[in-house]
């Protein structure tokens, strides 16, 4: 089974700084792999252990995604090779644009049986790229998959929805978006990281994959921190009997209502 696992490069969340005016600063936020996509990569790596075929990691974004640390990071998690469309024209893509560029890159890669995506990206979390990609590739597409089992040239998946769990048989090629609890992504060992440096990585421009330059389908007006709710911040310090008694007397009045 030839598998392509898609991942998004996002700014490291904990290094995003909220400025006093509510705007966000990404100056200190290094590019990293979107957390939920690690589950897709791990699902691919686990399938690769039981099936023959290749596992290729794929991402699209600006030139900044083409960094040695990031490439090693993804390649130390199981994929044999990496493909990227890294082009500064791919800034702030919406979900439709992303799907279109991924489609062009997948067609450039050529043969595949299964495309894996995460549930959503950890930065914007629209949960839409996988579903859009499956549609533009015109292949069976299922989201919210919590287990994948290969079965005679097809896959059988468990899909966890709000109130039900269904088991589906899907013919290949297909696209599957996995949940965050499908697996626990592996932590790469030093050996894996060293080996990752020797794995092939291909970096393309928009022209290389023949992707059209699309205009945005979404107009972003602004992105800013929500205003904090004002709280009393009546905090008792210490856990001596007296302090606990003081705390209880404060909250009793509230809890009694």
């Amino acid at each position: 089974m030839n598998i392509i696992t898609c991942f998004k490069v996002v700014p490291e969340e904990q290094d995003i700084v909220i400025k006093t005016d509510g705007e966000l600063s990404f100056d200190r936020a290094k590019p990293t792999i979107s957390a939920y996509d690690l589950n897709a990569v791990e699902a691919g790596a686990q399938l690769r252990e039981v099936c023959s075929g290749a596992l290729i990691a794929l991402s699209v974004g600006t030139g900044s995604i083409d960094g040695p640390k990031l490439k090693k990071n993804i390649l130390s998690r199981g994929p044999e090779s990496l493909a990227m469309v890294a082009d500064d024209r791919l800034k702030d893509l919406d979900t439709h644009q992303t799907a279109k560029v991924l489609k062009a890159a997948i067609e450039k890669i050529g043969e595949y049986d299964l495309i894996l995506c995460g549930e959503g990206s950890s930065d914007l979390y629209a949960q839409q790229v996988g579903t859009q990609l499956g549609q533009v590739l015109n292949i069976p597409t299922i989201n919210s998959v919590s287990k994948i089992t290969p079965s005679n040239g097809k896959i059988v998946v468990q899909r966890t929805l709000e109130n039900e769990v269904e088991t589906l048989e899907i013919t290949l090629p297909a696209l599957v978006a996995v949940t965050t609890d499908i697996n626990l992504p592996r932590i790469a060992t030093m050996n894996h990281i060293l080996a990752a440096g020797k794995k092939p990585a291909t970096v393309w421009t928009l022209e290389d994959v023949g992707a059209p330059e699309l205009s945005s389908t979404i107009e972003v007006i602004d992105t800013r921190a929500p205003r904090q709710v004002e709280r009393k911040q009546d905090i008792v310090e210490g856990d001596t009997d007296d302090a606990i008694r003081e705390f209880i007397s404060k909250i009793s009045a509230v809890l009694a209502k």
Partner: protein
Amino acid sequence: MRTMVLAETQKALAELCAGVSQISQQVEAVIIGDQLKAVTDTVWHIPAQENALLEDYTETIAALIKQEKPELVIVEPTKRYKLIAGRIAAMLGTSVITDVLALGEDLIAKRMVYGGAAIRTEKVASGCTIAMVGSGIWETKSVTEVAVREEKPVQFIEPVNRVTRIARDEKEKAAVDLPGAKIVVGVGRGIAEQKDLEMIKQLAYAVKGEIGCTRPIAEAEKWMPKETYLGVSGLMIAPEIYIAIGISGQIQHTVGINRSKIVISINKEKNAPIFKQSDYGIVGDLYKVVPALIKHFG
């Protein structure tokens, strides 16, 4: 403005139709099969197909939207509809705005990004706006039964790709109604062991509250059901009182609880961010404080 509404449940269909009518004069429900009752005077009805998944109606819904060209399509944010809406958007050459927190007559939407650290304001550049909206965003007017004046049948279009459903099991329902609870006790990583949840249960019982948790407690430790974690990608609650125990106050969690009327927190770290978002708090060992609370309130 003309709007079509798609929902999986009757409750959501009724609330979304009533809600969106505050910004749209013409609201039309799209009903698949015979499970849902109409709540608008004009209804598009897609006949039920044998052995079809809801996903198998995607092409049919897309064709209806293409033909009727509503300015707005409101979709209940369920997993199935996230898939269906995304595929429809791909067919229309647009993107869906998911998990919308606010949507006005101007079709400008607000949604949470960066794990709750920011709110993004955005709108669709051109054509149909597809927005996935939870039922809570509009002040709900009373939902009244509406006599259907016009039911328009929609021709079913055979899906291009089908998957086969082998089995379907109802999930065990979470025993608690966290969104409806007046008092919620939340637990985080400050709890050392799963068995210590017993103490939290006693406290919840004493203050007549329900128990929720942070994502690591549900997903990494699996000490609590996944349905009970509060925050981004989990539940968003607005109880009268939220009691945060051993919760540091990461934004991913606090976005789920910051609509609580009163927040009370117990944490041994003086600098835990949760204290800045609390009305009352104590800097102390939860293993000393919680038993004292149980004794007092029990």
